[in-house]
């Protein structure tokens, strides 16, 4: 490979051709601050507009300062990252940015996690010499996301994920000059746009311009209400990330501590979404088998590929962009939805509490789940199956608010009967997990034989699109695909539309790497190693489980015996499956 020799801060360095000054400096231990620049190494997510100008450095001989994040190293370049000229310019640029930023850090949802705040602190900004007009935009609330455009610094990270990564394009830069800001088309509320509430904009926003809707207050109020019983469920990916909020290394598995903390917060019943993930496999897996058998038998009407439907942003995506293809995804509700439906029927009856008096809370790595809770079809007469969904970050806040020292908290078990799960359920948290879990059950059911190996390595990994052929002896060679990022999902939808989709079964997750990097997870600030550590932890958690196939979960077997009868029974169709709607956004330019 071609290499380039240059000097940075009086030290010689040799880097491969095409390396930016930022990267070259980084490998020498020189940390040039950045704001707009964002990159998730190995997850194909990047934003390099070179717009914030915080990373400017002096390149000797050049007329202007150079943005380190996009300037490639050139032979014999002499770079000064900390010359007075560069430092002064960087400080001035930051002061300019702050001169149009509300100084309400104490109340800001990003306080302590804000990259602008951190940078201002690191640079020792004590006063802002420039005073003048400030942006005055209204806050916008949606079921999942709160936008405060006054805090937008035009880094365009959100725009990049929304357009390039998700191919959704709900938000982008509007206006020009000083009023330029990221907003929706015609300033519409997110709910009226193509937004699918994946929340990746929130995950990458360096400031408090984008944040999740906070439900912690409502939960504390309901827990304190003696008339109500509260139960809580925790999604798989939460357990490999929550520890980060308490200073633990990324990838720490804190399942037991979460159960203990939720009990300490005061929930009456502490359950596990992993339980309903196993239930999902039973329902979705049975649906896959049914549709596949019909397809292989020559049924022309059956829709193949079957697509997963656990990711709420993905559900929103096909309802908004491909409503005509909404028969392809499985009708199975998401694990959150199945849990809510079971709790508000089977469990409410069991403990003798009317459903209105039972509050169901979910802890999710996700902000789209908040929107899912509000879906009318996922409730009865206006009473939602899941009352509130909170993110991993909100749970961390709840734990802190409730004076719980998470680190020294002894581990506890989830409650029964909706608390036991298998390794197949925990891997739902990573891309490929639902596919693998479904295969562990479906292949055994199809062949009637115990799998010799249950690790389907071929569907694991962190590539955005992965495909595999799974031989199912005596049935067929099953062609499967696993994608994350809705842009990749769009490719599959287009294949289906064009009639050339080669797969039988497709798993789709909206977020990078699946739920482990859901928009409700602790902020990673572009450090891909955090996501990789969570990814490894998910599979580690799977390995540690005594049972690793959903159909072997005794609590699942019990509920079928006691309540649902069998997978895809009439009762389960009623409670565990759902409908999708045509939600295509039609912009009426006249109004």
């Amino acid at each position, binding site marked *: 490979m071609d290499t380039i020799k240059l000097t940075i801060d009086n030290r010689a360095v040799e880097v491969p051709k095409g390396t930016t000054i930022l990267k070259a400096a980084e490998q020498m231990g020189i940390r040039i601050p950045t704001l707009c620049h964002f990159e998730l190494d190995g997850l194909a997510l990047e934003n390099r*507009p*070179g*717009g*914030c*100008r*915080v990373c*400017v450095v002096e390149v000797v001989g050049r007329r*202007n*300062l150079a*943005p380190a994040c*996009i*300037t*490639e190293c050139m032979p014999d370049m002499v770079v000064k990252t900390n010359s007075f*000229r560069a430092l*002064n*310019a960087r400080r*001035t*640029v930051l002061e*300019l*940015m702050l*001169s*149009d930023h509300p100084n309400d850090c104490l109340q800001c949802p990003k306080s302590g996690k804000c990259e602008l705040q951190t940078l201002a602190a690191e640079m020792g900004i004590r006063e802002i*010499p*420039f*005073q*003048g*007009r400030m942006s005055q935009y209204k806050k916008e609330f949606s079921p999942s996301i709160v936008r405060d455009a006054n805090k937008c*610094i*035009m880094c365009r990270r959100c725009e990049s994920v929304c357009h390039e990564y998700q191919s959704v394009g709900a938000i*982008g*830069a509007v*206006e*020009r*000059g*000083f*009023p*330029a*800001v990221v907003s929706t088309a015609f300033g519409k509320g997110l709910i009226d746009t193509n937004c699918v509430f994946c929340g990746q904009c929130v995950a990458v926003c360096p400031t408090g311009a984008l944040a999740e809707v906070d439900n912690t207050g409502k939960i504390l109020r309901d827990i304190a209400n003696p008339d109500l019983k509260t139960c809580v469920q925790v999604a798989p990916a939460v357990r490999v990330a929550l520890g980060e909020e308490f200073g633990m290394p990324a990838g720490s598995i804190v399942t037991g501590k979460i159960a203990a903390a939720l009990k300490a917060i005061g929930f009456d019943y502490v359950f596990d979404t992993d339980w309903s993930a196993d239930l999902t496999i039973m329902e979705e897996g049975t649906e896959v088998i049914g549709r596949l058998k019909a397809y292989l038998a020559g049924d022309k009407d059956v829709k193949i590929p079957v697509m997963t439907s656990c990711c709420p942003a993905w559900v929103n995506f096909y309802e908004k962009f491909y409503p005509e293809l909404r028969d392809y995804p499985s009708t199975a509700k998401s694990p959150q939805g199945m849990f809510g439906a079971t709790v508000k029927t089977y469990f409410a009856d069991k403990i003798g509490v009317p459903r209105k008096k039972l509050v169901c809370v979910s802890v999710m790595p996700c902000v789209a789940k908040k929107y899912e809770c509000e879906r009318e079809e996922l409730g009865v007469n206006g009473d939602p199956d899941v009352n509130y969904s909170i993110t991993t970050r909100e749970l961390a806040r709840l734990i802190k608010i409730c004076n719980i020292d998470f680190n020294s908290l002894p581990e506890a078990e989830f409650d029964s009967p909706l608390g036991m799960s298998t390794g197949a359920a925990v891997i739902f948290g990573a891309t490929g997990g639902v596919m693998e879990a479904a295969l562990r059950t479906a292949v055994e059911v199809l062949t009637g034989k115990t799998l010799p190996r249950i690790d389907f390595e071929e569907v694991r990994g962190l590539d955005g699109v992965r495909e595999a052929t799974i031989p199912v002896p005596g049935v067929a060679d099953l062609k499967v695909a696993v994608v994350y990022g809705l842009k990749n999902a769009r490719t599959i939808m287009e294949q289906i539309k064009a009639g050339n989709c080669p797969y039988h079964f497709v798993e789709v997750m909206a977020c990078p790497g699946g739920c482990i990097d859901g928009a409700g997870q602790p902020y990673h600030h572009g450090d891909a190693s955090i996501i990789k550590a969570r990814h490894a932890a998910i599979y580690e958690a799977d390995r540690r489980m005594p049972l690793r196939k959903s159909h072997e979960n005794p609590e699942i077997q019990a509920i079928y015996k006691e309540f649902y009868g069998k997978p895809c029974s009439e009762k389960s169709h009623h409670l565990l499956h759902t409908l999708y709607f045509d939600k295509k956004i039609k912009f009426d330019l006249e109004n």
Partner: protein
Amino acid sequence: MAVKMHILVCGGTGCSASASREIISELNKEIVAHDLTDFAKVVVTGCFGFCERGPIVKIIPDNTFYTRVKPSDAKEIIEEHIIKGRKVQRLLYVAPDTNQSVSDSKHMEFYKKQVRIALRNCGFIDPENIEEAIARDGYAALGKCLTEMTPEQVIAEIKKSGLRGRGGAGFPTGLKWEIASKSRPGEQKYVVCNADEGDPGAFMDRSLLEGDPHSILEAMAICGYCIGANNGLIYIRAEYPLAIHRLQVAIKQAKEYGLLGKDILGTGFDFDIELRYGAGAFVCGEETALIHSMEGKRGEPTFKPPFPAQSGYLGKPTNVNNVETYANIPVIINKGADWFASIGTEKSKGTKVFALAGKINNVGLIEVPMGITLREIIYEIGGGIKDGKKFKAVQTGGPSGGCLTEKHLDTPIDYDSLVAAGSMMGSGGMIVMDEDDCMVAIAKFYLGFTVDESCGKCTPCRVGNRRLLEILTRITDGKGTMKDLEDLKNLSAVIKDTALCGLGQTSPNPVLSTINNFWDEYVEHVVDKKCRAGQCKALKKYTIDPAKCKGCTACARACPVSAISGTVKNPHVINQLDCIKCGTCVEKCKFGAITVQ
């Protein structure tokens, strides 16, 4: 039978706005009425340049140049000049120095020092008739390139000519073509013409496209031949309807004549040109922003590299040149690089078109050889400052340039001297200011323009320019401090150093150059709260001289904010806190009792 006399009437935007269309129809009516259709013919041309004296009507072959013609003059022109051969004296230009009428434009001071290369056909040909363009060597250069020269030879010729980009930055054109030609050979490439002229007061490109569209089409085809592109795109502002119309007509005619389209002149070379419309954003004159706009994206620049030659329109190698740059190409091919290089200075060859505007007697479009001095332009071509006022400064390069003063009058105009003097060539706007212009207000005006036109992508331009403008506003409002002046300098320097694109990097130039050249005026505004030009309203003070005031109450009754108090037949007083400095009282006072400081 060939027509003996041609009546050329300017059909440019300026003269059209001054009723040249009516003049044309009146002339045609008179020709028909006098049964002269076989003898005389009206030709609608592009801009003659002497806009100050428009509408212009020129009679060929005797080269009589009529100025400020009205539709009602048509009858006299036909009856006197065409029929009787007598010049209409009252419509001739009168030289201000000699008071003599001058009938031939080449004897006018305005034209004497001009050298018309890019504008060679403007005001001579009917831009909507390809045959007139062809009669003046139109498409001859394209033919020569396609049949006698290899692309490498053409590029070598352009390089040798020393032609530099006329859009403002002055990048060597031949080199640009060479880079584009070597970039990803064999792939689809694009030739783009940047007609997104946006400087306030500039109309060079518009006039060129209106007056001689074929030379641009021809040059783009030559460029396509050189770099290996078969597609050309002209990015033009939608607010230039006449230029768009003329281009559409020209493209259609060129295709009919086989000079555009498939297999041009039977050489096997294909080249097509399409128009792309801009919505009038100044920043879209920046080539990467222009390309994004053409792609249907937000018109904002991106970091270079990659340059358009590497990855431009739709990611393909793209060569972007300005209208005026292209206009020079056919002449260079026809007359040779040596001839072109003999005009101008050592590093700036050829000519430059300027739109001369502001407080100058001869407002108009001029083309001068590089190296001419500002003094020659302002005092000879421009005819000096209006109303005998004193020259103060000239702004070149539009909002990206700077103010040049008295001491720069003998600076030769070329790319490098202008930059050295603290301004820049820019695309060719040249606005002259006199003693009545406040330089702080001028800086504020230009900055206001950049603040409006900033795309908002990078922080220094989005927020920094806004803050600069706010500081300038404080100063012109009489609220400035000496620290504000320091902040202006420091912030300007950082914006120049850190902004993403040319717009941001040059936006503080009007501030810096006025600070450098008119520091005293800034200090006066801040310390003495005084604007010597009397332009800054907030710094004006209206007072009533009690000795002169008769107590007629006219001022008090007229004051819209009731800031004047007093009783009948007693001297009145202006309450300074209420006064909005509208000046109504001064107009009403019959006794000259109200003074403005």
